[in-house]
């Protein structure tokens, strides 16, 4: 069986700063992997590289058997199949919720407007957002905006969903509604790579946890092992700090 996502020896630097220093990671289909690690450890950069928002300096990324980092690949075609949700939502403020969700299907997949609309409304209803369909994003709470952003990514029917600290910009009381959406997606079998600071959530939802440190995956394993008996000293110290901050 081909892996949903295969990352081999990926390096990425910004100027003289090496942000990713040889990342190897494979996701099977329906697998949910959480990336944890301090700010600046390379989690977001890795996700942006997989979505080709950042060109990589070395290595190879393969999605469902297609080498997407190949020069000859059609970037726009690759991105259709890979959804990404950002920390700051990045909804389009000049469009209604419905237009935000249907833009990709209409302009990229060439769906007729009526069909895109029907599909979008069904998807919004699935996540309790049907009443917001005609509102503009600035009328929504942060949690609702982030759920819309997730729906917008799902409307493209991606084979892989990347979530980049999607709850970090939310007020604490709004975090749960977004996490429950992600749990539902995990339950439905969506392949996901999630960068997160929510350790309790990561332990719940992930099949596997990867600890990133200074641009490398220092250790990875099932949540129980990583959180209870991490092998690496740095992982232990990182988790200790999280516990001291009351986040686990």
């Amino acid at each position, binding site marked *: 069986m081909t892996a949903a996502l295969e990352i081999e020896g990926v390096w990425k630097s910004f100027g003289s700063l090496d*942000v990713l220093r040889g990342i190897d990671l494979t996701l099977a289909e329906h697998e949910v992997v959480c990336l944890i690690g301090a*700010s600046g450890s390379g989690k977001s950069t890795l996700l942006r590289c997989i979505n080709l928002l950042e060109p990589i300096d070395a290595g190879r990324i393969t999605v469902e058997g297609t080498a997407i980092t190949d020069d000859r690949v059609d970037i*726009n075609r690759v*991105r259709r199949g890979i959804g990404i949700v950002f920390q700051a939502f990045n909804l*389009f403020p000049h469009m209604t919720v419905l237009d935000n969700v249907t833009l990709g299907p209409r302009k990229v997949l060439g769906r007729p407007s009526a069909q895109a609309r029907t599909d979008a409304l069904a998807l919004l209803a699935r996540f309790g957002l049907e009443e917001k369909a005609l509102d503009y994003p600035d009328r929504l709470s942060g949690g609702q905006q982030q759920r819309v952003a997730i729906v917008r990514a799902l409307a493209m029917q991606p084979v892989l969903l990347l979530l980049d600290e999607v709850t970090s910009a939310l007020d604490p009381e709004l975090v749960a509604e977004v996490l429950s959406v992600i749990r539902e997606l995990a339950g439905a079998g969506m392949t996901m790579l999630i960068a997160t600071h929510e350790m309790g959530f990561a332990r719940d939802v992930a099949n596997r946890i990867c600890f990133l440190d200074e641009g490398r995956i220092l250790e990875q394993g099932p949540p129980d092992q990583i959180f209870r008996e991490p092998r690496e000293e740095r992982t232990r110290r990182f988790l200790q700090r999280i516990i001291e901050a009351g986040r686990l």
Partner: protein
Amino acid sequence: MLVAVVSSVVVFGVLGWLIVTSPGWESVKTSFLNGEVFAESLPLIVGAFVVNVELFVISEVLILTLGLVLAVLRGVPGPVFLPVRILATVYVDTFRALPGVLVIYILGFGIPGLGIAGIPVDPFIYAVLALTLIYSAYVSEVYRAGIDSVHPSQEAAARSLGLSRFQALRHVVLPQAVRRVIPPLLNDFIGLQKDTVLVSYIGVVEIFRQSQIRQAATFNFTPYVVTALVFLVVTIPLARLTDVLLARQGARRTTSRVPSAMPAADSL
């Protein structure tokens, strides 16, 4: 409220009194505010203003289009497009540097002067051409500022859905950019309306040329006052509208709940 009324009455009263008691007031009144000349030149001057309206309406449509194209071309990324960016930049620099009157003169007299068969000789065409060249340079800078004001995360979000660079520009970046720069665009539109009088130099009989003709015929300056009034009537409402739009935009910006930028530390 009372203080405002009293202070206004006093200030304007004193100003008015100073003017009407000045030693030259009687002669200025007869040469600039002659009722008879006013009544007889008003229809002619308003009639000539139609030419200015045609000038600035046709030019504005061309300016908004060309300005947008220039702004987009200056922002095309990639080494292959360096010549395009250079050309667009040279264009914008050139037409912002040249005094408008010079451009109008050079085009209005120079191009017909080439004597190429079939080339139009109507000065109106060169007037539109000159105004379009001058103002599209300014307007492209306004658009560019608007495009730059849209956070890169918006384009990233659009591209991440699979939209091409052009689609992202067309559906996500430009609609937001243009909305933000409508007030400064209106400002430039007001400038354009006033600058239409400059084309009188190349023989277009528009409002200013007509008032010169009336002035010469009547030996009286009242036609200029008529022209000034016409511009005030047309331009002031537009200026007020610009202010209202700006104020509304300012209010919206302070109440917006959309986070405009990602924290820099977490973007790694």
